[in-house]
Structure formats: C-alpha cells, structure tokens
C-alpha cells in the first residue's frame, strides 16, 4: 500500500466552525476514496485562524515566522490539498486569500486541489466558480471539476439537501483521489541543490 499526504486548509473562524465541518467531511471522504485506490493518506490540517497574526506580519515583513512557515511547508509539500473558506462579502475571506498570497507563485503548480466553501445561504454558491477557481487557476493548481458548497440548510438532517451534500462530497473526493493516485508523490524542488544549468550556459544565453 502506498502513502500520500493530504493537506487541509480551513479558514473558518468560529468554534465550532461549519467551514471546518465541511473540511472534515471532505477529508474523510477523500481518505476513504484513496483507500479504495490502495493509498493510505496522511492528513495534516492547517487552521488559518491560528496563523492570523503571523499572516499579517508576513505581509509586512516579507517572511513567514516559524509556525507559519511550517504550515506553508505542509501545504506546499502535500500530494493533494483541500481548501475550504467561509464566504465573506461575495468572495473568499481575507484570511483565506492572505494565506495563498504569501505562498510563492509557483508553490501550488500542478497540485491536485479540492475547493469548498460555506455560507448562510445557497445564493453565494457560485463564489466557488467565479472567485475561488480563478485564484487557483492563477496558481496553476489542478482543481477537481466538482467543488463543494455547503449552506446552512445543507446541514439539516434527512433526505433532500443533506443527501445532496453527501453526494457532492463523495463525487468531489473521488475526483481528488483520482488526481492524487494518478501522479507520482510530490517532490518540491530545492533551490539550493546544485544548479542544473551551468553558469557558463547562463553567460552564453545573455
């Protein structure tokens, strides 16, 4: 059985948080879907609330402090990412955006990503498509065709909306598991390895 790491970024602020709740449902479903494909997943959760001040500091100083750097390394080094945000003022929250602002612009290139969002009403659901997808397209991540939105009413028990949520979660998790299973383990390049291009080549190019 092979092993892959799955990073989960949750930008929920309240406790308990419906954003974290959705993140956990997506995570459990993805772990199960990976297991069906013969892959054991190691899950690492990054709660952005814990890094709220560090993220603001990073904007000002240009570097991540140690706890934030550890969170960044977790996400950048993972084989797959689940990113979930609450909807604030018709878009992802500022905290969520700040985390992706401080990443290197190539850090998520080619990384399988599953997007999720939560809000009070389903009227916000297209934020997934016209705010979150473009952000991850810019970062050149590979986003699953299904992104999962959960409004307050989705958490109601019984058939109907709740059942629909479970169905969306399973479909999205399957898509993410397929993406992760279909590629080799992530191996972020170390910029301090001996250069692959010699300095003579750099000189000749100019």
């Amino acid at each position, binding site marked *: 059985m092979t092993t892959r790491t799955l990073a989960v970024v949750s930008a929920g602020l309240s406790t308990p948080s419906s954003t974290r709740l959705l993140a956990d449902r997506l995570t459990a479903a993805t772990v199960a879907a990976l297991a069906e494909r013969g892959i054991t997943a190691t899950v690492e959760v990054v709660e952005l609330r814990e890094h709220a001040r560090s993220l603001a500091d990073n904007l000002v100083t240009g*570097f991540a*402090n140690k706890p934030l750097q550890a969170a960044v390394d977790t996400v950048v080094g993972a084989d797959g990412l689940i990113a979930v945000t609450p909807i604030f003022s018709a878009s992802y929250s500022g905290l969520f955006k700040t985390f992706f602002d401080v990443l290197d612009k190539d850090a998520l290139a080619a990384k399988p990503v599953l997007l999720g969002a939560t809000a009070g009403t389903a009227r916000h659901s297209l934020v997934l498509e016209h705010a979150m997808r473009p952000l991850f397209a810019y970062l050149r991540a590979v986003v699953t065709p299904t992104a999962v939105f959960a409004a307050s009413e989705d958490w109601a028990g019984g058939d109907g909306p709740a059942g629909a949520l479970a169905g969306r979660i399973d479909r999205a998790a399957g898509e993410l598991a397929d993406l992760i299973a279909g590629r080799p383990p992530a191996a972020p390049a170390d910029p301090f390895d001996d250069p692959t291009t010699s300095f003579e080549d750099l000189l000749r190019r*100019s």
Partner: protein
Amino acid sequence: MQFGIFSVSDITPDPTTGRTPTEAERLKAVLTIAQKAEEVGLDVFALGEHHNPPFFSSSPTTTLAWIAARTSTLQLSTATTLITTNDPVKIAEDYAMLQHLADGRVDLMMGRGNTGPVYPWFGKDIRDGIELAVENYALLRRLWREDVVNWEGKFRTPLQGFTSTPRPLDGVPPFVWHGSIRSPQIAEQAAYYGDGFFHNHIFWPPEHTQRMVEFYRRRFEHYGHGSADQAIVGLGGQVFMRKNSQDAVKEFRPYFDNAPVYGHGPSLEEFTEQTPLTVGSPEQVIERTLGFRDYVGDYQRQLFLLDHAGLPLKTVLEQLDLLGEEVVPVLRKEFAALKPAHVPDAPTHASLVAAAGGAQDATVYAGADDVTGQVRDETSEVEAR
C-alpha cells in the same frame, strides 16, 4: 576581519518628534557618520544606491569621493550598486575614477535592486533581473581587465574598440561582492568568479542567510577557487545599543514600531527573536554577533546598519562610539582567535596588487603621430574634410 557600517540612505520621519530631515540634512549627516566611522576605528563604510524618494543616494560615487578626501584609512563600498539598471560602462568608469581618487580604498557590492519602477525608468524589465546581472557584470569585468573591448550582448548597444578610462589603479580592478537575499543564481555568480558574497542579514531570519552562504561556499569550492571555508563572506546586521539594555529597548521601540520595512507588524521582541536584530547592551551585541559565525563559518566582513528609520544624527554618532569603543575591539580579538590560518582576510587593494605581482600603471595612451606628436583623432579628421 573587517568591521563597518552600511547606510540605506533613507529619509524617514523621526517618529518621536514627527520631523522629517531635508535631503540636505540627511546627506550631510551621512558624511559626518562616515567620518566618525573612521574616527572610532571602523574599517568600512558602504552606501546604498536608490533612484526614488524617500532615498537620497542616487549617485554614490560623488558621496564616496567626498568621504575619500576626508578620510585616510576607511574602505569605501556600496550597498548595493545596481548592476541591473546601471550601464556597466558607466559603472566601470565611475568606480575606476573613485578607485584612483581614493588611492585604492574602494570595493563594490553588486545588487539587483528591488524597486519595481526603477527598471522601466531606466529602460529595463524587472523580469530580466538575473539575466541583466549576469550579462552586465560579465561586461564590467572585461572593461576593467581588457584595454580594448569589442562586445555584443542582449541588453546594451554593442561596443567596438572601446577603452574604459581611467584604467583601474595599478592595473588591478576593485574587489567585488555580490549581494542577494534569496537568489541562488547570484550566489552562483559570486562563486563562479571567486568574488565575495554578501548577505544583508537584516530584516530576515538567519536561516535564509545560512542557506545562501552554504550554497555559495559549496559552489566556490566547485569552481576551484579554494576550499569552501576560504570563500569570502560578508554579513550585515542591525543593532541598537545603550549601556543598560532596558534603555536601549525603550528608546528604540518607537523607531522600530514605525520603521518603513518592518513597522506595524511583529513586536520588537518577536522581530529580535526571528531576525539578527539586536537591541540591548554592547555585551549582548557582542554575544549575538559572535554567534553569526556558528551558521556562516569564519567570515571576512561585518557591516552594521545604524542610521535608519529616522534615528537622529546625534543618536547614530553615540551608537558609533559604543560600536567603536566597546563592541568592535572585542569582536576583532574574539573572531581573530577563532579563525584558522588558512582562512583568508577580505581582499584589499594592497593584497590584490601583491597577488598580481606588484603595481603596474595601466594607462592606455591614444595613438600619436610619431612626427608631430599630434593625437590622431578620427572625429577631427572628419571635421577637417
């Protein structure tokens, strides 16, 4: 080991009074600071180059030439010279001039510059930063080492039969350091040529410095310039001192909290822990600075940032007194005792001349008519027709 100071040349309001110095005041203050640096026994003064407010230092060689005339031992350097947006021909000329005027007390630190609009203002593109640094520096080296240069590249007008004047003093070009916070390509460039590598080592965690210096040392050895521990390394550092460390913290806090680079972010205590900034007693500065060696190895040059963030001239001069009287003498002794014999000192004009087998006048005379002694000037010939 060389000790000195470097100035960013920022004009920043003093947050304790709300007053912003004029350009004239800051410029004169920097001259006073440089003279004071020599007076208190420091070795190096390095000045930044910027082409936009709130900085005044657009023309470092003018300032450094003035300082050269008023000092006698101080080594003059830059922090940094913009190798990307300056014409390498002008750098070759300006710094050879300065080298002559300063009797060889000149070296340079190359940097790419991080102010976005400066590139387009000088007709360049910031995305070409590394390529510009590589091509321009390769040309600069040739201009200092070859009397007549024929050259063609990507970023500048070709040169045919060009002689950069004056030729370097004693036939020996100034020593060059390359500065970069996190671009391995620049450390690679320094290693390739066997030049020095400087890490600014301020405002950022020391882990960045450590990785860059390790890489530079490894590549220096790879290119056959000596063993990794013989590579020429310089570090920056930022300190604020008072005899009593609590006084230092109390006095520096408003400057820290409002500083242009890191202000309004982490607390002074957090930033001191996360970066090499030391605010405290001279003893604390000595202890912290000696600790730099633990992660970069034996190094050749330590520059401190003192005039920054709106600190008044009087305070900066007091800092220089503390640095010269209490800190540097101890550091000199301690670092010297730790350094193995095979680790070289930073090159100076004297050591480079000695390595070249002695001073040679490098003047290039224009071709003259043997009979009349008249210089053949193609332009005047054309005009005469």
